[in-house]
């Protein structure tokens, strides 16, 4: 198909050169101007995300596993899949024994987990790389240790958000974290549980992705 490729590119180049186009400069100021005071960011994120049915839990570095354990027990969640090789995963398992929720490590390829992941495991835990105040969005940065299906397949997605990792805009997060230099296989912004309005514009939650999104805010 390289013949097709070359003929398309040749045609584009020829016709563009015949009628060059001078685009106006891209002024990012209207996006850069969107800023919120530090103390406003989390409440704003919370408000925007709660408006689309996201749930929030507050915790500290010391007690987040306990807060999570309690929440899962209270909600009657029988199983939680997590990333065992991450620091978060290691913290999670410490002293979990007493819990009524079974911990399942995501320690093998998806192919070997598929039926359980789709049919029996109720919740998945991931970290985040921060959140965005403008739109109320979590930044998910899946890795080899923390696979992307953790936040996709189980009915409940629990996302750990550190309250000191908040950004004003998508643009700011991408610049500050240097995304363009090293994009991983998959990056996600997640702004709520899965939803649809395809049936007569009636909002319904949990169509294909998680039915519930729970943000576990870890305050410093």
């Amino acid at each position, binding site marked *: 198909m390289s013949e097709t490729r070359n003929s398309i590119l040749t045609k*584009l180049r020829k016709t563009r050169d015949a009628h060059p186009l001078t685009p106006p400069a891209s002024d990012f100021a*209207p996006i850069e101007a969107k800023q919120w005071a530090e103390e406003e960011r989390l409440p704003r994120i919370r408000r925007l995300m709660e408006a689309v049915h996201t749930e929030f839990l507050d915790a500290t570095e010391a007690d987040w596993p306990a807060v999570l354990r309690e929440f899962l027990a209270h909600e009657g969640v029988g199983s939680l899949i997590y990333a065992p090789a991450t620091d978060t995963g290691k913290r999670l398992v410490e002293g979990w024994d007493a819990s009524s929720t079974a911990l399942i490590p995501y320690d093998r390829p998806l192919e070997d987990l*598929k039926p359980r992941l789709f049919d029996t495991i109720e919740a998945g835990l991931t970290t985040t790389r921060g959140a965005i105040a403008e739109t109320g969005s979590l930044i998910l940065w899946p890795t080899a240790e923390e696979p992307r299906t953790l936040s996709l397949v189980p009915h409940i997605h629990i996302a750990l958000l550190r309250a000191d990792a908040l950004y004003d805009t998508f643009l700011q997060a991408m*610049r500050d974290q240097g995304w363009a230099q090293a994009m991983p296989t998959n990056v996600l912004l997640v702004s709520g549980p899965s939803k649809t309005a395809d049936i007569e514009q009636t909002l*319904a939650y*949990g169509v294909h992705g998680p039915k519930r999104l729970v943000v576990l805010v870890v305050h410093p």
Partner: protein
Amino acid sequence: MDGNAPDFAAASRAALADPQLRGNFRRAMDGLMSKRAAQFSDAGEWHGVRALAASVRLRALSKLPELLETLEETCTRNGITVHWAATTDEANAIALDILHKTNAKLVVKGKSMVTEEMHLNAVLEKNGIEVLESDLGEYIVQLDGTMPSHIIMPAIHLNTKQIAHLFKRKIKDAESREDAAYLTDLARRVLRAKFQAADVGMSGVNAAVAETGTLCLIENEGNGRMCTTVPPVHIAFMGLEKVVEKLEDVPPVISLLPRSATGQPITTYVNMISGPRKPGEKDGPREVHLIILDNGRSSIYADPELRDTLRCIRCGACMNHCPVYTKVGGHAYEAPYPGPIGKILVPQIEGLEKRGAMPHACTMCNACVEICPVKIPIVEIMGRLRVEAVKPSGAVKDGGAKASRTEAMVWSGWAAMNASPTAYRVATLAMSKLGNAAPSSLPMLKEWTNVRTKPRFASRTLHDLARAKGVPDV
């Protein structure tokens, strides 16, 4: 696609005669317009981000061949296999080839307008491959055996009751419940089994980043993520105009697209894919293919005026605001892209012989132009296509297809009358004296008087009145 020219007038008559459909669209579009307006309540912000997004699209078009080459390079470096297709047939053949090589039997699809353009589903089914649309709206439309009626909300023409009936007929064990939550959950159950079993996932692309070799997809349901994450092979389809230069160019587009489309600040998921599963990673497809489709786009690009058509980011806001679309709905256009963007894009892709009527299905009210997030001069392009239909410059496929000697003579006569003060005076005098005697059965008057009284010629023209009242002439 069939060879017959679609008859927009006939199809729109049928749509207008369906009060259910009229009501569904009126309600839906009214809601979408007010939700969008609420998102852009800060006029300064709207103008600023809109100018930025337009500049991003224009910059991409200004470097289109170079950016496509860079995209190919960065994608390839990331492990994505890039394919080029000049026509929809070529694109279908490439897709089929990948499917055969992977011995695929079941395909799940996320929303992709390009695959609608290709009629890919029909091709796959003909080749014995089961293909399932997974966006809820697309799934509904596929079950119903029809086409999407809106590019963002494919099943907007149906109400809950109609969908409940459809599910009852088509899905095993479905209860007859007119409840969106129940119906959504039903679809969830059916489709989760399919996501798990699928051999290949397919998707469109909202923006492809040349700088990093990244495919961006936005969606609310999670089906796009399912299709691009769970099956072992992912095939993404994009029109060649979908490339942007830098990763930083994505936020302005993402900022405007969902707000314009459905009035939400952002979609639930923004999914950025930069390659297949890497060694050591536990999930993600093992192969990612990107099929870049031309299908007439390079010809659109060739003309400096028509080129602006390719700025489009497919938000569908032009449909929501189009008074014609709102009345007749998407199906009347019988095209993958309905509404204003369809009226300029489809005739350029499919030619004016088949689609010459589309640019005339417009009152040129400019409501679409007012809200287009990337400032496409839709109505100017519409006007240009009307010219190409009767006086071809060679820029558009089947130019001149609507040329008519009679029509040309009428306009030439009209011009002669209006270009000469004497002729104009004689003609208007005649109309003032005799015009009202014209029978309503005359062509044009007949259509006009269908719901209106006959326009009444005044007995004296303004020219006469001004002269009589001594209004100076110079």
